[in-house]
């Protein structure tokens, strides 16, 4: 088990290891770039919205965008993604709409999940992007179950599950990786080590030298990859996918990156970390690096970049407008639907009680 972090690009976008440079079609390279830019711009806009009181809550991924696309790009559409709350790019990559995304944040009448969860808890079944829940780590054994089912059904689908380094401290992480090892399951454990779990520094999370090292405890390979280098991530993902589809089992990937923003819109990092730390990481910005790489390859120009920015900005504005134009909240019937496949008598009765009850001003329907 080594401490070394695998990179393909340096901070200037030079290829360090041509032999490891994944072969990606130019149009895909541009789609990946565009996706990372979208996440960056969406985060800026939504955070501003939240500050203005137009959104209840938000979480940004600034500086970690490469993990979204480096993880999602190498997958087949039939593969499953179990995200945490910090990988919206993986959904955009598979076609999650900007308007749907914003409607979820607003929990409005067109929220795909009917206003049931807080902002950033997306669920997009049509693209195998599984419902996000707040409890840290719970998705990890579930992804293992999907991989187990795929193996039982003799299909070669793979499950990719994201979690932060804080998630490795949960019991769920342990039982999940142990099952994956014992049953040799086609699952990829993607640990975004962004250095912080709210105010808790990485050193306080574990005394293990690396998070990748934890793979040993389950008889799995563990790799450390530069989480701000999308090409490096694609390359280790390709290896993990080959292993998984080849029946050799699971892989634990530790993507070393950094949470440049606050944990969430409710958080204030200045209380617990030195502002120079996030500053430092700006020099390893995953988008900037990749952009310089594309420029070197003649695929990107300052002008094209500017054009993309404007285009994406325009799309966000349009989606936001349209989402904010959605009238009203989900109807109160939705509060009692989907608890079960069919609404049982006691919930029908409670719905009626609510419909007949007088309401305080604050809560008129």
């Amino acid at each position: 088990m080594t401490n070394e972090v695998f990179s393909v690009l340096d901070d200037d976008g030079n290829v360090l290891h041509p032999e490891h440079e994944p072969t990606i079609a130019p149009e895909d390279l541009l789609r990946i770039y565009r996706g990372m830019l979208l996440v960056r711009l969406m985060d800026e806009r939504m955070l501003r919205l939240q500050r203005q009181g137009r959104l209840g809550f938000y979480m940004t991924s600034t500086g970690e965008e490469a993990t979204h696309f480096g993880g999602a790009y190498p997958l087949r559409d039939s593969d499953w993604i179990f995200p945490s709350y910090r990988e919206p790019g993986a959904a955009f990559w598979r076609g999650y709409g900007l308007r749907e995304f914003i409607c979820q944040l607003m929990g409005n009448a067109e929220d795909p999940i009917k206003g049931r969860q807080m902002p950033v808890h997306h669920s997009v079944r049509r693209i195998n992007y599984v419902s996000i829940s707040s409890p840290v780590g719970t998705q990890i054994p579930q992804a293992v179950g999907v991989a187990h089912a795929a193996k039982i059904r003799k299909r070669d689908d793979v499950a990719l599950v994201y979690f932060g380094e804080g998630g490795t401290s949960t019991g769920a992480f342990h039982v999940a990786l142990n099952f994956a090892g014992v049953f040799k399951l086609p699952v990829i454990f993607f640990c975004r080590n962004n250095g912080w779990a709210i105010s808790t520094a990485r050193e306080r999370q574990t005394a293990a030298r690396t998070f990748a090292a934890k793979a040993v405890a389950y008889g799995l390979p563990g790799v450390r990859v530069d989480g701000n280098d999308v090409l490096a991530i694609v390359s280790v993902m390709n290896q993990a996918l080959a292993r998984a589809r080849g029946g050799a089992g699971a892989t634990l990937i530790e993507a070393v990156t950094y949470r440049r923003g606050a944990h969430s819109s409710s958080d204030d990092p200045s209380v617990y970390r030195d502002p120079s730390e996030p500053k430092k990481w700006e020099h390893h910005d995953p988008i900037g690096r990749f952009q310089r790489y594309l420029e070197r390859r003649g695929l990107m120009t300052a002008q094209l970049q500017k054009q993309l920015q404007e285009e994406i900005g325009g799309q966000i504005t349009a989606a936001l407008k349209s989402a904010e134009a959605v009238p009203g909240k989900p109807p109160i019937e939705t509060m009692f639907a989907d608890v079960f496949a069919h609404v049982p008598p006691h919930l029908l009765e409670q719905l009626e009680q609510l419909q007949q009850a007088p309401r305080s001003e604050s809560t008129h329907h």
Partner: protein
Amino acid sequence: MPVMNMIQAVNDALKLEMRRDDRVVVLGEDIGKFGGVFRATSGLYEEFGADRVIDTPLAEAGIIGSAIGMALYGLRPVPEIQFADFIYPAYDQIVNELAKFRYRSGGQYAAPVVIRTPYGGGIRGGHYHSQSPEAYFVHTPGLKVVIPSNPYDAKGLLLSAIRDEDPILFMEPKRIYRAARGEVPEDDYTVPLGKAHLVRAGTQVTVLAYGAMLHVVGEATEKLVEQGLDPEVIDLRTLLPLDTETVIESVKKTGRAVVVHEAPRTCGFGAELSALIMEKAFLHLEAPVARVTGFDTPFPYTLENEYLPDAARIADAIRRTVEY
């Protein structure tokens, strides 16, 4: 018709459904080659193989967590928790994940997992092999809770449960695993969820129970009937969704009710039944709804028989309620 005990009925249901539906898999600790510590899954490993009869490492959170994933993928997992007392490491997966998946995803995802687990006292198991945690799950929106009291229902309810679209706690009263015997059709049949069973029609008082307590209630009412009393006895079978109509109609008729369960009294399912009856049949009540339950202590070892509701305590409560 063959006579079976509860274990055989459960085993028969699993075999039947696994033959009928290849999406059904079972998983848990010691359930494969060994056939389960109570033998409920015996023979399954031999017939369906290691892919569908899965011996897991010792981790309930892993069992339920991966069962959820299997269900999301389209399988019909029927995990076993070896004893209900050991279900708590999986509690987060059950109450925060399994119960809420359909709701939180706006109906996109469903996780029809049927968790089988032996529960209850009467086997000299002390407080880690005797617990009755049903109320924890009844209080958790999104879960159904089913408890059979006899082999016929055990098979019919389990088949209904596995074919249901919702996550279900299927709690098996281990105390009567072998003691409860009865005729069970070999072929496919179901007993509907959400429907109580009228065990004895009566006029003076409604006795509500489920699981192993039905048999103790039987002992008690038998004596009382000899003494000229006329109790009505209802086996709830499904705690959630509850067959409120049957319960309330009965109490409106008798004007009296006694609720029996093994679990501790405070905030047990008996409290819900009592509150519900008051809300829906207040003007018919001629006596307070009585609760005969386990006490508010951890489940003891030596004094198990004192802890558990027995025929005498139940008969006494019924008589007092009738004479109130």
